[in-house]
């Protein structure tokens, strides 16, 4: 009994100390900190973040996967009214551990920097970023917070055609056209892709260098126009860059063009969004051209296509909108995606109809408060027939492939 009282007293004192300690008063809110921009608070540091977890049930294979997909910690610091630092550290799939760790299992996760850049304000509507940053392409690449899109998974097009989240090292300039209210533009120069990583079926995704010792002389230019008018948002963006990430001598031996725009990849997208009275409708189309795919195939035997394209349309309606005006929401949505990840092949490419994909998605997003989302959806995936010539695992070890398959997903997401 005496021990219980002591424990209670200790807990009470700890709680009091916690609430009264000066360090608590140093915790900054977004309103008071990096974002306030007032002269009296020229320097400030702020913490923020987001994360998501998901349970995905494969209805044909009769298996499921549960994972803490990502936890991202944002740390920003304002040096003065002109210069700020933005960083995002991401842990994917919860555990990064080797055999010798105390956890007893090998982790399947990864750690990466999603962003780490300095922002230099030129005037209230123009700024330069330098470091590891995310160029403006598509919807999700820049706007990938899980509470801002419907569906447990990100739209598949914006992972397989536009390889979100796509960040590289470079410099970007963002501004507005002053004579047209609502018209923004951006231009950036970053390191290029690594064609040695291109993998058939995942577009250029595996060719991203993500600021991790990006090799070669390849450079990439990205430009975008983003226009807000009434309840619409329209965006046009283009990327063009080299994809040779090896030194000139090695490139020559592989017959790859080297130099800043050698073995160029060109990506373009056009998208639009309408938001009004609880409705949220978005459409996007994107295409990737790899002109030198035949040479890349000769060098790396990767079955790289010359052309990839896709599009999707999504409509969502907030069933709570009339009562809560977005403060609390229950969004019912549907999305249709189509993509062809080997729409045109070079002479040395091998067709695989699995790369022609359709996704039909329907689900609900419940947000009890802004910044928190509970998601439920059903994904139906339809693809073409796998090319038997590309199946290297003999029967019976060969894993069955279902051209028509359904997935039931449940997830939670937060952003603060």
């Amino acid at each position, binding site marked *: 009994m005496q021990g219980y009282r002591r424990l209670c007293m200790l807990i009470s004192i700890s709680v009091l100390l916690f609430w009264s300690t000066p360090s608590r008063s140093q915790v900054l809110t*977004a*309103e008071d900190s*990096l*974002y*306030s*921009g*007032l*002269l009296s608070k020229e320097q400030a540091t702020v913490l923020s973040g987001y994360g998501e977890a998901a349970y995905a049930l494969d209805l044909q294979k009769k298996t499921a996967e549960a994972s803490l997909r990502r936890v991202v910690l*944002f740390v*920003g610091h304002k040096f003065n*009214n*002109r210069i*700020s630092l*933005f960083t995002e550290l991401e842990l994917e799939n919860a555990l990064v551990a080797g055999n010798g760790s105390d956890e007893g299992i090998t982790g399947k996760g990864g750690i990466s920097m999603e962003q780490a850049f300095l922002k230099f304000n030129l005037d*209230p*509507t123009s*700024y330069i970023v330098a470091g590891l940053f995310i160029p403006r392409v598509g*919807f999700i690449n*820049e*706007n990938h*917070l899980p*509470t*801002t899109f419907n569906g447990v998974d990100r739209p598949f097009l914006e992972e397989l055609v536009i390889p979100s989240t796509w960040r590289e090292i470079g410099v970007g300039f*963002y501004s*507005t*056209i*002053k*004579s*047209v*209210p*609502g*018209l*923004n*533009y951006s231009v950036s120069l970053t390191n290029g892709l690594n064609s040695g990583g291109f993998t058939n079926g995942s577009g250029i995704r595996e060719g991203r260098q993500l600021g991790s010792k990006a090799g070669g002389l390849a450079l990439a*230019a990205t*430009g*975008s*126009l983003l*226009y*807000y*008018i*009434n*309840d619409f*948002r329209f965006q*046009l*963006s*283009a990327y*063009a860059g080299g994809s040779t990430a090896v030194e000139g001598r090695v490139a020559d031996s592989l017959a790859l*063009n080297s130099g800043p*725009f050698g073995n*160029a990849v*060109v990506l*373009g997208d056009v998208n639009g969004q309408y*938001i009004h009275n609880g409705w949220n409708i978005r459409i996007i189309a994107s295409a990737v051209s790899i*002109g030198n795919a035949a040479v890349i195939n000769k060098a790396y035997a990767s079955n790289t296509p010359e052309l990839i394209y896709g599009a999707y349309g999504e409509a969502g309606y907030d069933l709570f909108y009339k009562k809560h005006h*977005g403060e609390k929401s229950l969004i019912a949505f549907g999305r249709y995606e189509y993509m062809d990840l080997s729409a045109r092949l070079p002479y040395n490419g091998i067709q695989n109809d699995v790369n022609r994909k359709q996704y039909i998605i329907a689900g609900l997003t419940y947000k009890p408060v*802004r*910044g928190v989302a509970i998601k439920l959806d059903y994904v139906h995936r339809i693809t073409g027939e796998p090319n038997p010539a590309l199946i290297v695992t003999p029967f019976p070890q060969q894993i069955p492939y279902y051209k028509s398959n359904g997935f039931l997903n449940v997830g939670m997401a937060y*952003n*603060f």
Partner: protein
Amino acid sequence: MQRRTFLRQSCVACFGLAGAGLLLEGCGSALPLVKLTPVGNTISVPAAVFAAQVMHVIVRSRTLENDILLVKENDTTYKALYLRCTHEGVGLTATDKKIFCSAHGSIFDFNGNVVKEPALRPLKQFKTSTDNTGIIIYLS
């Protein structure tokens, strides 16, 4: 030939972006912008900037990192919204319908309230008052 193809595709992309920009030039008129210097902790905005039908004026000052959107509610009531996104502090784009963040897609209304995430908090508002000459914005 491949280099030519690349140049052609890049040029099409560049001209496409530039052409779209030029087309949009004709789509709207800019919100009026006034550049003013604060006196102490206040900015005095001449009433004349609110000409007939003008309901929104952007106020810019060298001493502030971002602009202020002055919203006319009636002849004696104005709202002064700080055009800085409460998500990651990016400068906002004001139109005559809503206020947008080009970086991550947040949208705010003219009360400063969040219409669309990722921003979670309303925009900072400065107090205002009116006198014979115009509108006074109190910066603190």
